[in-house]
């Protein structure tokens, strides 16, 4: 459990950056080489590689080198763990507000009676 929490920390830090989030979005469509991934950004290769290293360190992305080409792949399970917390928050608010809908109906009924 402790290890899991630590890795989730890293995952969230990785996702807090817009460049890294857009790399994740790109990789959701399929694997790509570092060169392909770096192309849309106005960043030097060393700076771009730093982002890839953060994503790799937290396990969101795996890289494989074949010959001279390094290819990146998304680890979907890892991404799902970070997204889960937000989904849980959404469920809490949905349920809470369903309760409030019902309460408002009850209160409006009471107002009409009095």
């Amino acid at each position, binding site marked *: 459990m402790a290890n899991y929490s630590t890795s989730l920390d890293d995952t969230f830090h990785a996702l807090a950056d817009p460049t890294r989030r857009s790399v994740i979005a790109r990789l959701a469509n399929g694997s790509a080489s570092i060169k392909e991934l770096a192309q849309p950004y106005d960043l030097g290769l060393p700076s771009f590689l730093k982002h890839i290293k953060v994503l790799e360190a937290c396990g969101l992305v795996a890289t494989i080198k074949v010959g001279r080409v390094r290819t990146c792949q998304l680890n979907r399970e890892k991404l799902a763990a970070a997204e889960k917390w937000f989904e849980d928050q959404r469920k809490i608010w949905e349920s*809470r507000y369903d309760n409030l809908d019902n309460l*408002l109906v009850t209160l409006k009924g009471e107002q009409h009676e009095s």
Partner: protein
Amino acid sequence: MKADLQFDFLVDKENSTLTVKREFAAKRQLVWDCYTKSELLNRWFAPKPLTTKTKSMEFRPGGHWHYAMVEPNGQEYWGRLDYQTIAPIDNYTALDGFSDETGVVNPDLPRSTWNVTFTDRATHTVVTTVVSYASPEALQQVIDMGMKEGLTSTLERLDELLPQLA
């Protein structure tokens, strides 16, 4: 949720905020009362199957709501919402935090700021709640806490149970 009422839930990871926007089929004064009177908060604030109980409530700037969300098995999750600014029936801001039963806020966990705005939409009311954390790191800590506390697992059990009841 009723299908015709707007519900938006937006996550902004860059700024560590959650924005929850929801429309209610009632006048603004009534919705405001539901948010600001503890006897009414007790009737809706905790997600099902949990219930809400209030230990103390002082709705004024500098005052706070000390409450618990209670699981059916009796497990209690205490919280404290410290009111900062209040503009009836338009807006209030508050600082949310995890506390214990005596109302002492856990100093090791980050608190979030709530900015809650109430606006008219014809005969309905729209409530926009912006929950902000100080940094991505602060939000990470709260995520960890949620994982350990098990509140979310209660909600998951509910998801499993509902199809069986239907």
